[in-house]
């Protein structure tokens, strides 16, 4: 019974925090874009624009839900849910910290530990494609259809690289369990360099993972599915109100999840000085490392132009994929000689 109560409380806390973070991630992005582009960003609602997410939420809820004349009204409504739910489910296995003592109980700072945690994550990210493809198809609009098809092709191509780039980490950590992977990265070499995977054998793996992750989350320079200057808004052109908000939240949920995953796999997760004595500090380290990724995401968006569709495919299959294979061979060789 206690276990169930503990799990429910943790789920509520994690999702509360994650959803709040997502709302403020949108504000963070708009603020940073504003600064990079010589403007202020949102600053009308609340002090420093801090209530902007709330205003946006209210706006989305009260907008008219326009449904196009589509032969598939059910699919049209299901698609945003299909893309949001897998994005949120990823947070179940992400380890935000180690374990703490509270009320005489040992409480882990993650919802659950799955021994095939990574497989679970990749399975979920594969499911997210359905939402986008169905949205494009059910919208009964040419722009949406093109956006949905582009998306499917892009996600499938880059998922290969995303998955393969992680295998080097698996070889080194010897486990698919995310908690074991983080534990493998504790400690330092020569008391100076942290034993994070990004520093030890996996810088290429990290780079591949990061590029593929940007593509996987449909962000600049790989934001073709929703290239607004070509396809209006891509797969979610016809969506409005709450359904549009779901796609919006799903996109940010994916970005946050992928950043958290990159932190876990390559940047040592919660590891940092003083974590052994004060495990709650680990959550702070984790958040800071993830924030760095989020900033890089936004920075890319502010700076780079967009790839063309065929160039994107060529880059994925002819550059990233061979490099990912090379990285696996390299990692395996290092593991056997070590």
């Amino acid at each position: 019974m206690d276990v169930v109560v503990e799990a429910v409380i943790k789920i509520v806390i994690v999702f509360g925090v994650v959803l709040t973070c997502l709302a403020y991630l949108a504000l963070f992005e708009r603020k940073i874009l504003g600064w990079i582009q010589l403007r202020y960003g949102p600053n009308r609602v609340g002090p420093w624009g801090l209530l902007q997410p709330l205003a946006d939420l209210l706006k989305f809820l009260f907008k008219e839900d326009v449904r196009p004349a589509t032969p598939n009204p059910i699919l049209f409504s299901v698609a945003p849910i299909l893309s949001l739910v897998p994005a949120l489910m990823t947070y179940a296995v992400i380890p935000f910290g180690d374990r703490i003592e509270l009320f005489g109980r040992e409480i882990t700072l993650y919802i659950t530990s799955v021994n095939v945690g990574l497989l679970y994550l990749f399975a979920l990210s594969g499911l997210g494609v359905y939402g986008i493809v169905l949205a494009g198809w059910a919208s009964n609009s040419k722009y949406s259809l093109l956006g949905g098809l582009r998306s499917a092709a892009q996600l499938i191509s880059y998922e290969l690289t995303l998955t393969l780039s992680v295998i080097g980490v698996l070889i080194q950590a010897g486990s698919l369990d995310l908690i074991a992977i983080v534990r493998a990265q504790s400690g330092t070499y020569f008391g100076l360099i942290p034993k994070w995977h990004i520093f030890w054998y996996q810088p290429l793996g990290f780079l591949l993972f990061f590029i593929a992750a940007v593509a996987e989350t449909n962000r600049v320079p790989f934001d073709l599915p929703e290239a607004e200057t070509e396809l209006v808004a891509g797969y979610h052109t016809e969506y409005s109100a709450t359904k549009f908000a779901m796609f919006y939240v799903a996109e940010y949920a994916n970005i946050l999840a992928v950043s958290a995953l990159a932190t876990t796999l390559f940047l040592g997760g919660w590891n940092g000085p003083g974590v052994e004595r004060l495990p709650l500090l680990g959550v702070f380290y984790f958040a800071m490392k993830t924030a760095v990724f989020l900033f890089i995401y936004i920075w890319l968006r502010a700076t780079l132009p967009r790839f063309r569709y065929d160039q994107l495919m060529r880059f994925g299959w002819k550059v990233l994929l061979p490099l990912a294979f090379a990285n696996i061979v390299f990692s395996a060789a290092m593991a056997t000689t070590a």
Partner: protein
Amino acid sequence: MAESEVLLEVERSPLAATMMVNMGPQHPSTHGVLRLVLTLDGERVVEAKPDIGYLHTGMEKLAEHKKYQHVITITDRTDYLNAMGNNLGYVLAVEKMLGVEIPPRAQVIRVLMAELQRIASHLVWIGTHGLDLGAMSLFFYAFAEREKILQLFEAVSGGRLTPSYLRIGGVMADLPDGFTARVLDFCREFPRALDEFDKLLTNNPIFRMRTEGVGRLSAEDAIRWGVTGPSLRASGVPYDLRRVHPYSGYETYDFEVATRTEGDVYARYLVRVQEMRESLKIIRQAVEKLPPGPVKCDDPRVSLPPREKMLTQMDALIYHFLLTAEGIKVPPGEVYVAVESPRGELGYYIVSDGGPRPYRVHIRAPSFANVQALPLMVRGQLIADVVAVIASIDIVLGEIDR
């Protein structure tokens, strides 16, 4: 089922090989209200048909109902990114019919304004070009620079987008105090912004992948379709009216005609960026050689007498009355004068019947001719390239539809 009916069925089926997509008139990257009817095979363009006319406001017809000096404000609104240049083309045409002599100071001020306007127009182009290809921040940087030029225009004329600064026989008023210093400040700061654009776009591998070899236009095709301006020069034809048929004293300025030979989107990009640097050169020279003197000719047929004289001398009062009540009487005849706008050859063809209003005004809009070559440039390209090509020919719908 007869064979023809079967074929009809195949065409109607959703699996038919081609798909029709309407790009515009409400589309974020058709630069206004251009409508393109695209026939797509997958993402590849089989055919593109530009459909224009959504911004038609009847400006040429309207000009027939206005006095000569009032048409200037209409020209501002045709190519709204090149208001000073439009003014220049129009007043040059009317002045040619009247045969009036323009004081040297006014000539230099006109060149100064036209070149500032060229930079402002190219800044809008580079910003939207970047935006169309996904580089969003550049748009803001370009507009921040353009803002400085608009403030200069505001200082001389009170207007920003539509200054209506030029007059038949000169310019509206002399430059305000400290204006040349502000222009020189701009000339000093602007190269730094250009260098920054170079970092963000010119040398950006993604940008080059998107633009090199895309939307090629050969020199022969460009000439055949009447393409002018940077789009023509990027195809290797060094045709620049400022050099070929100089007006307003352009022959006395030292500048290069930027030319490339590739004829693709990237070449057109490089030509325009180079043109901004050349315009800066011209602006510096103009500031240097700015002579003292009047800014309006003293021909009583076209310019109002000074207020002092109008209040004290009888003949000045009469001229003043005639000019405001009747307008400028242009001798009968017809004239065609072309200037180099940021988009190409901007021509004004004016027919006069001797009255104070033009009998006919036709504007040879460069964008109108340039957009005709669009289907040729995008045939066989991807839909993403269409966006890049439209941005690269830098159309302004205001002057296409007029």
